[in-house]
């Protein structure tokens, strides 16, 4: 980090020595001007954002427990539509709050909620189609792909962090399946093409974000 005060002192010395003009010094100082400390209003906004994110996470957890519990009395289609409607409504309301009401934080929290419901939907479908319990990392792969696509389309950067957390889970989980000698049939494995696709997809997304970051850094 460049010390602004030191740079200012040095700059004044350069001006007195005639190395640069005062205008040039001002221009240089403009580049390195330190960031202002967050105001009370900004702090309040940040707290609101945190509360909203926590609220969406808890609602998401509630959805997960809803899917996981034995709600035998509902048919699969009813369960599926509940999930799809909740997911779509939170996405649409999130988008509405960001675009039309200028409530960015509330909108982002709702989109996060939609993303969590999307994850629970994946596991619901897996449960219904009797996907082997061995294949739980597959659900996380699909969830990661969805999260990355959503992050690109909505431009919410924090969703990328969420995608990183989601993709680490199958990275740890896969070796347990691959090296489990009790699993004999290939049917129980995660299809090779999905893992390869995930690798390719992560590389392309990583490359795009990395290049963007490099361009901004320059």
């Amino acid at each position: 980090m460049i010390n602004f005060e030191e740079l200012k002192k040095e700059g004044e010395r350069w001006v007195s020595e005639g190395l640069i003009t005062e205008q040039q010094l001002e221009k240089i100082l403009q580049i390195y001007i330190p960031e202002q400390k967050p105001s009370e209003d900004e702090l309040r906004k940040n707290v609101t954002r945190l509360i909203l994110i926590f609220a969406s996470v808890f609602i998401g957890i509630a959805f997960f427990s809803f899917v996981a519990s034995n709600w035998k009395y509902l048919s699969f289609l009813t369960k599926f539509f509940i999930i799809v409607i909740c997911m779509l409504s939170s996405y649409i309301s999130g988008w509405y709050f960001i675009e039309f009401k200028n409530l960015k934080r509330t909108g982002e929290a709702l989109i996060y909620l939609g993303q969590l419901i999307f994850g629970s939907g994946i596991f619901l479908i897996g449960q219904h189609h009797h996907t082997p319990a061995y294949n739980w990392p597959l659900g996380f792969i699909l969830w990661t792909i969805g999260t990355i696509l959503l992050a690109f389309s909505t431009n919410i950067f924090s969703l990328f962090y969420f995608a990183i957390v989601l993709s680490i889970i199958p990275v740890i989980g896969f070796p347990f399946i691959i090296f489990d000698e009790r699993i004999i049939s290939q049917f129980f494995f995660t299809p090779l093409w999905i893992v390869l696709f995930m690798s390719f997809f992560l590389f392309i997304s990583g490359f795009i974000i990395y290049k963007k970051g490099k361009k901004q850094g320059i």
Partner: protein
Amino acid sequence: MVFGYLLLILIVFLLFQGARNFLSFLFKIKQHPEKEIFNLTINRENTVGQIFIILSIIFFGESLLILNRYFSGNLSFYWVIFIVILISLILGYFLESLYSIIFGIIFLPCWWISHSVVWIEKRTIATNIILSGLYFIILIYYLSGRILEKNKKWEKTGIIMHFLSIPMLFTFLFLLSTPYGISLIEGNLGSPNILLSKPLTFFILLFFFSSTILLFYASFKNFISISLEFIPLFFILCFFLSFLFFQIPQLTNMEYTYKRSFVESFTPQGIFFVIFLNIITFSFSLLLFFPWISKKRRDTCKFWCSVYVYFCNISVF
């Protein structure tokens, strides 16, 4: 016990660092911008992009493992790790992605230890050849780091390689200077003929020639100091190279177990190794400690290492 040592190291570091900051404040000495050196990425996009690239490499490795399972395990797990390391280093080089390079740097010695054990066990080759290979790898890291940090484009990569190689080198030398390390050198029950295993021969020669060429290149181009770095590093290189040619008189299994249980009783050659390796470790730590006093660049990391080595040595004696 280990946590106790770590805690002690931390306390000593904080005390020294606190004293250093206090003195700097008292005499208004300018601190070097070390934080900037260890700032690995430019911005959050850069960080996330690099993490995604590493994750994609790991997923590729896992897809290779699944493929391997489909084809009844013809490609061993160790080769998959090696391919992953190679890809991460190549991608790191072409994309200038520091995280991928760090990933490769950390896992290459782990791969070498695990895979060379398999090769050695198959052909009953002397186990201390693993140690030679490990030293050559660490030397490659150290010298590459010293060479690259002078290059503006690869400066950060060089610093990271240099930074990572120092604790690696010290841990390695320190472990060897302990009774356990001596037992690793002495407890070999095979022949030193590396030609018995083709992949082992290939990799050990690759590491040896790369490290030797780098050592001479770095000293020729004045990247490293002749008296302080080249001579000791070359001396240790010769020591580890001797494992490839000379067989240390073997101890029988019984004797080996006996010696291990009564570590006070070393063999004559064991005493030589203890003295030799402890002198090396101590002198290296001294070499790292003095630049910190003279406030040269990037010395905090070196200071850390020297404190670490001092404590390790004290704990042994």
